[in-house]
Each structure stands twice: as structure tokens, then as C-alpha cells.
């Protein structure tokens, strides 16, 4: 874990209530897709934990995509280039790409899709076969489709209302795709549960919980697993399929 002052390069709206922020700073502690950063905002006591969307280690660029869900993220969405943020980096275990199979599905839902971009690229770079399934409520909320395409990652879009891609949840796409050897998933808990139930293969699931500190000190985000209690922020957010207790 490191604390650093990051400078905003851009902060753009990419969908209703969704923003992508690029920041420059010391990204040396950000080593695995699925990790998160914890951002302090003026006037708000707790930091905002946001998953890493992408990182450019050479250029020192961190990208996060966030949904405006309250006053804190609203304030963040109004910040502009040149402004600075106090960021804790290198938080969470992240996905373990080494455990991937020959064929892999990367599955994201809504605000859980951003970290799956770096995850998919890391799998591709590791020589693994990877297909992405990205689920949204409606066409207007679809994000990242072009980015996945530009990264040469075959991508299936689903929308709950059928306004783009396959109609239904991500599980609607799973039934049309060949069964993978392994899955990597991030999204709302009902989506994670549905993927868990719909797939026979092993996988890793990234969970979300309200956090106090984000680095394992306060026990605010504990959950029960097959191997005892774990802290979503420190021992997670990624859990192995076989240890999850719903």
C-alpha cells in the first residue's frame, strides 16, 4: 500500500451517471487487475474505494471508471484536469491470472465491468483464450464495447431490456457460449450468484462491500467463507469460487 498525490488528466462522462477519470502519479503498487484504490475527497470523511480500470505502469497513468451514486462521487465527477487527489494504491488481492484455464470467460455487470478490461488484457497477454461477457440494463448504459474490440477481445453484450446485444442478464450469454475452463467475474451480487450457479468450472469472483478503511484494519467489510471470515478489502475483493458461502 502506498499513499500518493495524483493529478487528474481527464474526467469524462461515458454514460449516464458513469465517468472515466485518468490520473497520473505513482502507480508502482498497482500490480494486479481486480485491485482497487481508495480516494480521499475534500469534505468527505471516508475514502471512496474504486476498482482499477486500467493502468499504464510506464507512463504512470491510473484509470478508474465510477458511477455517481452519492454526494461524494457527484463531487468527484465535477473535478477537472490539473486538480489533485490523495489516493491509497495497491489495495486488495486482485485476480490471480496464473490460475486461468485454456479458455476463459471474463464477466462483468454494470459498474462491475471496468476492472474486467485490464483483467481481459492481462489474460490475452498471458497467451490465454479469453471472451468477455458484459451485462447492462439498457443500451444507453453500455460502456467499454469499443475498448474491448480494440484490444481484440471477443465480447458479447447483454442488456436486460434487449435494447443492445442479447436480451437478458449475463447468464443469457453463458448458455449460448461454449463452456469455459475458467471464469473471472465482477458485478452486483445477484449477478455473481447467477454466474456461480450457471457455470460448472472454477473461477474467481470480485465482491463489493461498504468499507471503512480499505486496508484490513477496521473489520467493516468481513464476510464468511469456507475458510473462515475474510475481509473483502484485504483478503478480497476477489474470492475463489470454491470458498464462497452465499
Amino acid at each position, binding site marked *: *500500500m502506498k*499513499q500518493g498525490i495524483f493529478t487528474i488528466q481527464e474526467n469524462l462522462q461515458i454514460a449516464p451517471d458513469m465517468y472515466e477519470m485518468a490520473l497520473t502519479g505513482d502507480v508502482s503498487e498497482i500490480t494486479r487487475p481486480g485491485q482497487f484504490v481508495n480516494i*480521499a475527497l475534500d469534505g*468527505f*470523511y*471516508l*475514502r471512496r474505494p474504486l476498482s482499477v480500470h486500467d493502468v499504464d505502469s510506464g507512463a504512470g497513468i491510473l484509470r478508474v471508471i465510477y458511477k455517481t451514486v452519492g454526494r*461524494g462521487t457527484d463531487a468527484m465527477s465535477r473535478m477537472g484536469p490539473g486538480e489533485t487527489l490523495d489516493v*491509497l494504491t495497491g489495495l486488495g488481492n486482485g485476480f490471480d491470472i496464473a490460475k486461468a484455464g485454456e479458455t476463459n470467460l471474463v464477466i462483468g455487470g454494470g459498474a462491475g465491468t471496468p476492472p474486467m478490461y485490464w483483467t481481459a488484457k492481462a489474460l490475452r497477454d498471458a497467451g490465454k483464450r479469453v471472451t468477455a461477457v458484459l451485462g447492462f440494463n439498457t443500451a444507453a448504459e453500455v460502456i467499454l464495447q469499443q475498448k474491448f474490440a480494440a484490444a481484440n477481445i471477443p465480447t458479447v453484450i447483454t442488456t436486460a431490456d434487449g435494447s443492445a446485444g442479447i436480451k437478458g442478464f449475463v447468464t443469457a450469454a453463458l448458455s449460448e457460449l461454449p463452456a469455459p475452463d475458467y471464469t473471472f467475474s465482477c458485478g452486483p451480487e445477484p449477478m455473481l450468484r447467477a454466474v456461480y450457479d450457471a457455470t460448472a468450472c472454477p473461477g474467481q469472483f470480485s465482491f463489493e*462491500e*461498504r*468499507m*471503512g*478503511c480499505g*486496508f*484490513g*484494519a*477496521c*473489520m*467493516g*467489510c*468481513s*464476510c*464468511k467463507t469456507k475458510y473462515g*471470515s475474510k475481509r473483502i478489502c*484485504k483478503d478480497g475483493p476477489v474470492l475463489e469460487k470454491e470458498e464462497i458461502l452465499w
Partner: protein
Amino acid sequence: MVDLKTTLSGIVLDNPVIPASGTFGFGEEFAPLYDLNILGSISIKGTTLEPRFGNPTPRIAECTAGLINSVGLQNPGVEKVVGEELPRLARHYHKPVIANISGFSVEEYAACAARMDQAKEVGIIEVNVSCPNVHGGGISFGTDPASAAAVTRAVKAVTKKPVYIKLTPNVTDIVSIAQACADAGADGLSLINTLLGMRIDLKRRKPVIANKMGGFSGPAIFPVALRMVYQVYEAVDIPIIGMGGVSTADDVIEMMLAGASAVQVGAANLVDPWACRDIIADLPERAEHYGIRSLSEIIGGAHEK
């Protein structure tokens, strides 16, 4: 040079800054960040006789200048704390620690304290009679002078280590509880624990926290804590560890002027993991700024002589 030393029941602390129970675990997440030996002491995660998972999530709600937590005393139980956590902490931290204990009956407090009494790493036993999170739990002891005194006597009977009772602010008259503990033989007092609070999610129209209510801490409660330390200092002759929203070196000095012999830092550790290190680093310059040569000389300094 400003003398930062202070004393708690004969134990000399290099400085008055102590991370508060529940915000520092057993030190394991902080040991990689800075040398823990700069700390005056460490109050370890609240420990109970049996292991506890704690309350359902969400356990955390943000507030203006603070947060509410409803962790519910999650801990691995006293056997594992004494057998594994304290030895592990001792590899990083070489001074006496403060063992924070809780219980759900007088007997449980005594059994937990008796086990902590055997731990060589423990300098002081801090008895939480105030955690507002557990249904039918600690709250009943800390809100009634007779119950608080009963716990004090039971713990004192099983240990030679100094016993500090950590008081809840969720009472009508904290002074009467403090006096009852002092009369029952407490060696010192820690105050204050969190204030019972609540937030409601406007979109869901439901409490943010699964258990509805929780303990409010952070800079917002500092004036309440300071006032209570000031009042209790006037009423008892035993040392006080002051806590509640302490976030800066100036807060430490203010708390000592109110009557605290040492000061715990809680919520600040959660938003700035280096908070205690930075407060300790700032203390000499801030003390000098106010013309203080020795911190121990200012304890209770705001009271009329």
C-alpha cells in the same frame, strides 16, 4: 527538547499517542507502513472469551466528520489472541500493549482478563463496558454504576496488571459511572467509546447499517469526548486515557489539558494509515509552539487550581 513522556500506572510511555482498539487490529496492517515502536502503546482489537464473527454487513456508514461502525466485536477469541496475535505483534512492537477486553457476563470478563493476565506482552487491561453494538451485551454494564463496579471488581480480582475501564458516553451522568469504577478499584479510565448513532439511506428509505445503529466516532465527537474527560478528571484521582475524534497533535495537547494522561487515536487511522506516526512527529513542534516543555506537566492544566 520537549519531553513527550507520560506515565500510566507506573508504565512510562515514550509519548502519549496510542492507536485505539478496533482501528489498528493487532498492528499487522500497520507494521509494514512505519516502525510501530514510535507509538506510546497499542490498544489491541477488542477481545472476547470466545471467537466472534460480529454483526452482518453493511457495518459502516459515513457521517459528516466521522463514521458509524457496527462491527460487533469481531475477534478470534482470547486463546488465539494470547497464543498467536500477541506473539506476532511482539515481533514488531517491543513495548507493553493494552489488552482491550469485552464480555457478556461478569464471569466472561473475569475469564478473559485472567487469560490476558498471563500474557507477558500485556501492560494494561482495558475493559470495554461500553460497546453499543451487541444486543444485550456490553451496554448494560457501562450504563449502570453498580454493574460497572461489579465488572471492575471481578477483573481486579484476577489480575495484578493495571485495570482501566473504558466508559461509554451513552449515559446521563458519566461522572457517577467513573466514580463507581474508581471506588471499585479501577487503576484508570479510558473515555470515551463511540456515541450511538444512525444513518438512513435516502434512496432505500432504510438504515444504512444492517444492525440499524452503531458507534459514531471521528472528529465530530471530539468536543463531547473532551468535555467528558474534563468532567471525570474533576471527580476521580486515577489516570484517564482520553479518546474520541483525536486527529492532530493539537487535539492531543487539548485532551491532556482537559485531564488525559495519554490519548488514543481511533478513526483517524482508518482514513490516514500514517495518522499516529504523523501526530507523534508533529507533537514536539506543536508543544513548543504553545510553550510546553513537558507534556506530563500539562495534564489537567485547563482546570482551575
